[in-house]
């Protein structure tokens, strides 16, 4: 079972790793961080293959890897102290529906409306799955890590200065 899985998807995982390295070079990531992006790409492809083997729906096939990879890069961002985007974008790249986009366009060019509809639908579903996966985890981390973000304190300060003035005037009266 594992052997056949390996045989079937080895090429995909290997090429995904190479492709993510290429993408990292393309967006000029720091050299010592390319390896993290590569690992993320391998993880997302592996999970995608597992979900495909388990015959899950198209949405889940993309939602689960996207979720795991987002978790991975948000945690890594806090360990390595770099923006999460640096790890997230290369990791997501193997899931991007480039193939579906092409087949949609091809079907439209060939005047094949039925196929175009199916492929466009699938492209949208995949994009939705990836988006949902990213949003769920990022939102969690956003709420944890931005508790002490510096919002404006205008009215606080006004209240404080008013209090100070009141104290000053009361002490002056004494």
């Amino acid at each position: 079972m594992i052997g056949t899985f390996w045989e079937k998807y080895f090429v995909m995982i290997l090429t995904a790793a190479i492709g993510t390295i290429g993408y990292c070079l393309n967006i000029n990531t720091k050299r010592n961080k390319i390896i993290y992006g590569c690992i993320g790409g391998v993880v997302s492809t592996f999970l995608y293959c597992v979900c495909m083997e388990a015959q899950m729906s198209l949405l889940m096939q993309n939602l689960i890897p996207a979720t795991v990879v987002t978790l991975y890069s948000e945690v890594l961002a806090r360990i390595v102290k770099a923006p999460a985007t640096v790890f997230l974008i290369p990791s997501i790249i193997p899931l991007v529906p480039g193939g579906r986009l092409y087949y949609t366009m091809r079907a439209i060019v060939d005047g094949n409306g039925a196929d175009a509809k199916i492929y466009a639908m699938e492209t949208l579903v995949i994009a939705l799955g990836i988006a949902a996966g990213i949003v769920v985890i990022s939102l969690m981390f956003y709420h944890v890590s931005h508790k002490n973000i510096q919002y404006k304190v205008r009215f606080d300060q006004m209240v404080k200065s008013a209090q100070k003035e009141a104290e000053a005037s009361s002490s002056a009266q004494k």
Partner: protein
Amino acid sequence: MDKEKVCEDPALVMECALDMGETMLRCGAEILRVEDTITRICTAYGGGIVDVFTILSLIILSWKTDTGENHTLTRRINPHPTDLNKLEDLNALSRYICEKKPPCSEIGQRICAIMAPDERRIYKSKMTGYVLLASAFTLFFGGNLRDGLAAGIVAVLMYLWDYCFASHGRNRVVYSLVISVVAGILCCLSVLIGIGQNIDKVMIGSIMLMIPGINLMNALRDMMCGDIITGILRLAEALMMAVAIAVGFGIAIMLFGGLL
């Protein structure tokens, strides 16, 4: 925060903060990160109340200092290719500024050092990236080795095209339309010559080169943090680019319609 204030002209500090914000935004940072950085820098150099409003192409910074002066500066942001290397450096620099509070001249020098325009030459690493990406994803979507080779050659030619024409004009949608037509024609030619065998796989490999992944990702992250305006702007740009890519390749296929 310690009470010890660094005496700097507010106008200079704001200039520095806006420089930081602008460079970060151009390198592909989220709005939240930009606004947070600007607020932190201004607060570090003298407290007061800081109002920042940022969208994709504009930063408005208004600062009421502790002495009661009001200052406002705005800055128009022009698009720039994403560069996560610089973004990381800038992130580290903003941490450094808030911790050490160096004089403004030093900040200016450091930003200049980070953002020094790249030498205009052919970068081997970038070209390798193009080739690896296109060939690997051609194989990923089920092409054979000859398709991978064809996609690699197309990628090299596309990098050279990018090198020659990328800086002309700032409308990225039209630019991606043009480069898609070129890439599509190159893909068709490579199959016609006989290097590649499956036109669809070669084309998918080149599509992966141009997909606006960073825009989409940032659009999502912005919307999630509550910056709906910028999120929508980025999403619209990304969708228009995706449509432009599809139309560009469509035109190329139509040009070679009878032959493939």
